[in-house]
């Protein structure tokens, strides 16, 4: 089983992208940073007690599924949309959603377009990779308008084209749009349109059939989310781990019950996972939050209690 292999190996092989600002990127020292990366580190901390015991394997859109299927990586934590066919036909198991994204449009303000429905006849730069082309085709078809697609491999090239006016609009996941815009010379000259034309639940996935391993990844992610919901932060983690009044926090951090044992891990697995970089909210703020150059708002990714979609099943 994967868990045994990982333990025997002593490192977790985690598939990431070759780079998406804020989500996964090696910094100037070659250390991987980012929102997706944090999930890998949390799993590594839970399983191997060491957040750095991760071997990051960069994958492209084409290679990610084979890498996972052939066992080259233990889990894939990159912007991969959870779809029916990937789950069922390609025989993978999505273990949750760490970012609710959606495909959006960005256009220069002086184009005078306010809604994507006014884009009849426009040239659209698409960053290929996930389901972008399909969503786009569906959207324009559904609205009975035409467009000129310009598929582009990397964000940098898309920005080149977009800024030179080689396309009128630029579409990709809204998170990436926001990140790119924040780094334009004049961010205010561009608008992101209100329409979000697709649901892009992005989350980690593992191979079909190894449910123990899938559970570990799923509940590690849930632990991060629940921690935020319950107010467990890196600041108060040690204090709470000693025991608290909230039974759910106690179950989460292993002072009550034996949830860790059920996963085949030890009792304080979740404490370690949260200890890496804090809870979901902290990870978000640190990597892609509004204080970073990426500057994303929580939006859909707020806790359900704050009107978002983040809703972890209970630890019980």
């Amino acid at each position, binding site marked *: 089983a994967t868990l045994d292999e990982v333990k025997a190996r002593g490192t977790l092989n985690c598939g990431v992208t070759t780079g998406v600002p804020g989500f996964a990127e090696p910094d100037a020292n070659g250390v991987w940073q980012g929102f997706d990366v944090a999930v890998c580190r949390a799993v590594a901390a839970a399983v191997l007690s060491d957040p750095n015991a991760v071997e990051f394997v960069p994958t492209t*859109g*084409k290679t990610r*599924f*084979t890498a996972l*299927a*052939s066992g080259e990586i233990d889990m894939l934590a990159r912007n991969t949309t959870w779809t029916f066919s*990937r789950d069922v*036909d*390609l*025989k993978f198991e999505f273990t949750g959603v760490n970012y609710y994204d959606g495909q959006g449009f960005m256009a220069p303000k002086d*184009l005078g377009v306010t809604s994507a429905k006014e*884009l*009849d*006849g*426009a*040239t659209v*730069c698409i960053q*290929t*990779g*996930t*389901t972008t*082309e*399909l969503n*786009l*085709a*569906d959207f*324009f*078809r559904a609205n009975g308008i035409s*467009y*000129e*697609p*310009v*598929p*582009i*491999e990397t964000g940098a*090239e898309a920005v*080149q*084209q977009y800024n*030179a*006016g*080689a*396309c*009128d609009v630029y579409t990709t996941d809204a998170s990436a749009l926001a990140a790119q815009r924040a780094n334009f010379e004049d961010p205010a000259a561009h608008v992101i349109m209100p329409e979000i034309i697709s649901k892009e639940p992005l989350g980690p996935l593992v191979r*079909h*059939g190894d449910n123990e391993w899938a559970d570990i990844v799923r509940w590690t992610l849930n632990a991060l989310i629940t921690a935020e919901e319950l107010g467990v932060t890196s600041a108060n983690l040690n204090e709470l781990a000693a025991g608290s009044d909230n039974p759910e926090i106690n179950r989460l951090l292993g002072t009550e019950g034996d949830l860790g044992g059920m996963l085949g891990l030890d009792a304080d697995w979740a404490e370690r996972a949260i200890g890496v970089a804090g809870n979901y909210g902290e990870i978000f703020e640190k990597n892609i939050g509004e204080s970073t150059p990426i500057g994303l708002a929580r939006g859909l990714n707020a806790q359900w209690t704050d009107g978002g979609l983040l809703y972890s099943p209970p630890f019980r």
Partner: protein
Amino acid sequence: MTTLADQPVTASNESFKLSMLLNDTRYRSLTFQFIALVAIIAFMAFVGGNLVRNLTEAGLNISYAFLGEPSGYDINQRPIEYDSQSSHGRAAVVGLLNTLIVAFLACVTATIFGVIAGVLRLSNNWIVSKLMSFYVEIFRNVPVLIWILIIFSVMINVAPSPRDFRGDDAVASMWLFDSIAVTNRGVYLPKPVMGDGSMIVLAVFALSVIGIFAFRNYARKQLFDHGRMVPVFWPSIGLFFIPAILTQFVLGNPITLSYPSLQGFNFRGGITILGSLIALWFALAIYTGAFIAENVRAGIQAISKGQTEAAAALGLRPNRIMSLVVLPQALRVIIPPLISQYLNITKNSSLAIAVGYMDVTGTLGGITLLQTGRAIETILLLMAFYLTVSLLISFFMNVFNNRMKLQER
């Protein structure tokens, strides 16, 4: 003497011994080939067995059923009818045609660039020959992928975007009396609209093209029969344009042009040549042109000085020496490497996705692979396609080589 002795005899009635399999020249090669055959089969067994086992383990199967399913994505250049409801198979065909289009255009242009640069490199104008050397060296020694990226980016940044044509104080304007628009999304050309009687104009045009060939033949015949030199170049040009234009005028302009114009976001009407096509085309052409220039130069230099001198001593003028003596011989040297360069263009066009041109690697080997996850199937198809193209090109090259072989003893 047609006796039996005129036929070779092969009978040999030595008794067969096992060691003859190794030591006898007649059996030895059979033995080796048999061993090789067994080795190949064993290798196939190893590879095939692993493949089957791995696929079963991953729960995958090899199936081409996805080719019939709707692709769900759009393609910006569609030589045949296609939309997002068409099948993956059709998308593959569109990509395939796109590959062939860009490869063909790039081959033609690369040849032109290459021949010009190769000849100019031998020019006695110092600055020009140095400039050409510079061109050749700089393009040959940097990977084509980098060139494609750089050239594409230069083009989209240098050419105006459709936005620049808009408004009263437009920064850019169309060329040739507002008939051609050059933008960084592509070039928009006027498109002929066929009215009544346009067939006549076309027919006249076709006839005048035939006429040019006839005229050239006539000129040659004049020279050969009567030793009269008839000028060819200007009459040909005249013949090409004048009759068709006259008919067009006489029939009251049956063929009209529909000009591209800025409507909404883009130019519409007319013929569009996509920017990504132009960029890839140009990048491949200029990159390969550098290699062809080298071949051309080498080919011309391979013709010994003696040939030129002999022709000069016979009183031939330099341009005739070139066309009658040097070029026919140089072509034999130039064409085989030229064809390999064509092959290279076809193969390098698989980098099209770097500029967003949807060739077969972009459709079948790109989005289709991405959407369906059918990596093995799509890659096998891709390989089969490229292999067919290169084998065809190699085949023509061999035919050519055999035909052009110098007669020797």
